[in-house]
């Protein structure tokens, strides 16, 4: 550990005077002239939302966990599609682009994008970076908003990347004599993107609700894999369970999206189930966060 020698010179605190702002605090250049900016700072503009979002996007990528997660999603999607290409050629299958994206959507995107959503919230608690985050921006709801927008950006970026990879996979499939049907219905694209968005945002909601990485991920997977089975069993046993299932089972309501059928989605049921599984936990989480003590 070396000891810095040039310490004092670089520090330019503002002397307290009762005069308000004589010299505007122009830059952070460490010149002696800067040392005598007066009283309360002239740097009195709030942190713009765009900057908070930029920082949040960076924060999802600048940790080892974040990098590996994104790399795994991208690499996993590519591998899954490559396998599809080979299987398709060998078995003389007829494939469209949505066949490729749907598989990628199930694995790895459907599995890992929600984890990204969870981590964007819980990572701050586990690593206690929330102390720095909320001292630099004490208006906590702005951080939550920035994180939400970040989730949307990442989901859409992932959707676009998957579609591009899908097109590449199709080209390879086509090139090697696969039976490729080159049409890409708009509603398939939209429902695919929507599905990724729901994945990230539901993960975000579980993160906000639970604030603990492993617990939130386990809960999300329970919701995602276990709960549909429970609902299915209930629906097959009791008529009343079957009739309420479309109003409480978010996964069930999303099934048309997984088929790429945007038009088949019952939007009333979609609204109700998303209120249960996304709006309610986020609202609860935000409410708690605004009051919580950050330690």
């Amino acid at each position, binding site marked *: 550990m070396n000891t810095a020698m040039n310490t004092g010179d670089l520090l*330019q*605190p503002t002397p307290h005077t009762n005069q308000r702002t004589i010299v505007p605090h122009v830059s952070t250049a460490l010149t002696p002239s800067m040392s005598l900016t007066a009283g309360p700072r002239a740097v009195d503009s709030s942190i713009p939302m765009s900057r908070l979002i930029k920082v949040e996007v960076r924060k999802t990528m600048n940790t080892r966990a974040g990098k590996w997660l994104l790399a795994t999603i991208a690499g996993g999607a590519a591998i899954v599609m490559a396998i599809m290409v080979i299987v398709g050629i060998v078995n003389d299958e007829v494939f469209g682009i949505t066949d490729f994206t749907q598989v990628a959507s199930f694995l790895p995107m459907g599995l890992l994008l929600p984890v990204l959503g969870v981590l964007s919230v819980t990572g701050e608690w586990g690593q206690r970076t929330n102390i720095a985050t909320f001292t630099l921006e004490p208006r906590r709801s702005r951080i939550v908003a920035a994180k939400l927008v970040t989730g949307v950006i990442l989901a859409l970026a992932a959707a676009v990347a998957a579609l591009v990879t899908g097109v590449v996979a199709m080209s390879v499939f086509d090139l090697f004599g696969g039976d490729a049907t080159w049409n890409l219905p708009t509603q398939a694209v939209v429902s695919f993107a929507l599905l990724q968005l729901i994945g990230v945002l539901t993960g975000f909601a579980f993160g906000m609700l639970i604030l603990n990485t492993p617990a939130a991920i386990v809960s999300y997977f329970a919701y995602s894999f276990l709960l549909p089975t429970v609902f299915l069993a209930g629906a097959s046993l009791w008529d009343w369970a079957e009739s309420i299932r479309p109003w409480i089972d978010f996964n069930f309501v999303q099934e048309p999206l997984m088929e790429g059928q945007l038009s088949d989605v019952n939007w009333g049921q979609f609204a109700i189930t998303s209120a249960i599984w996304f709006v309610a936990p986020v609202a609860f989480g935000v409410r708690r966060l605004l009051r919580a003590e950050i330690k």
Partner: protein
Amino acid sequence: MISVEHVTRSYGDFIAVDDVTFEAASGHITGFLGPNGAGKSTTMRIMVGLTAPTSGRVTFDGRLYHDLPNPGRHVGVLLDASAQHAGRTGREILTIGAMTMGLPMSRVDEMLAMVGLSETESERRLGNYSLGMKQRLGIAHALLGDPAVLILDEPANGLDPAGIRWMRGLLRGYADRGGTVLLSSHLLHEVELIADKMILIGNGRIVASGNRESLIQLSGGAGTVAKADDQSALTAALTAANVAFRVDGLQLHVFARPIEVGRIAVEQQIVMTELRAQQDGLEDLFLTLTAESQRDAPDTTLDTAHEPQIAGALS
């Protein structure tokens, strides 16, 4: 300048911070001293809006922390040097801070150089940092926004003796340029060398404040151990004379010279069984004032104004 005004924070029945009031003036280093669990960290978290006070408020040049736009440019905060992502490099941690505050990236290099973290060290992940390196990085983070106020919780933790001396020089230079520094410690000797003013806190309450000399006077110079035949008569007489004291079993620790206590006793015709100057140093004062039993002591008439608290004893 930081103004802490009647800040109280309770957790159920437990009062972590009890009506704490003090000011940290610009151009000065204010030491916030107390044993572990005395309420220092809670008070500091309240200052920067991480913990809501049950009552009271803290202002920076008249403004609440929450109302400071881009607060990192006004108040530099280091509450826990380990509270950063272990998977990020030191440089990346500063980069995020600089981005959030809207600073040029050159500021990151300047701060790294200032706290003595080398290029290679800055590229290492925080998980591989020693506590001393984390502390330096935390100080760099606090200074990034070129703030007018610094709030540092136990900044000397983990620094080696050379590092502590380095930090003293750094903070002294900063205060001499007009900056406001509030730093906490549970170690008296860390603070007494550097602080212009010390605030002693125990069990959530401020038990004494003043500069080093006045606190020494409080303890040794002006302190008296007194024991009377009729203790309640003596406490009443001292209270009437506006002299601060503390009850310690059958003894009274009076914050006045023996001659003053003697005079008061004579006037009231109280029979003294013991009357002697307290020879304890600042450390003893610190320990006695902040001791666990302090909370139960009936009357410590030390309050929180900025002047040394020697009541009327020396007048």
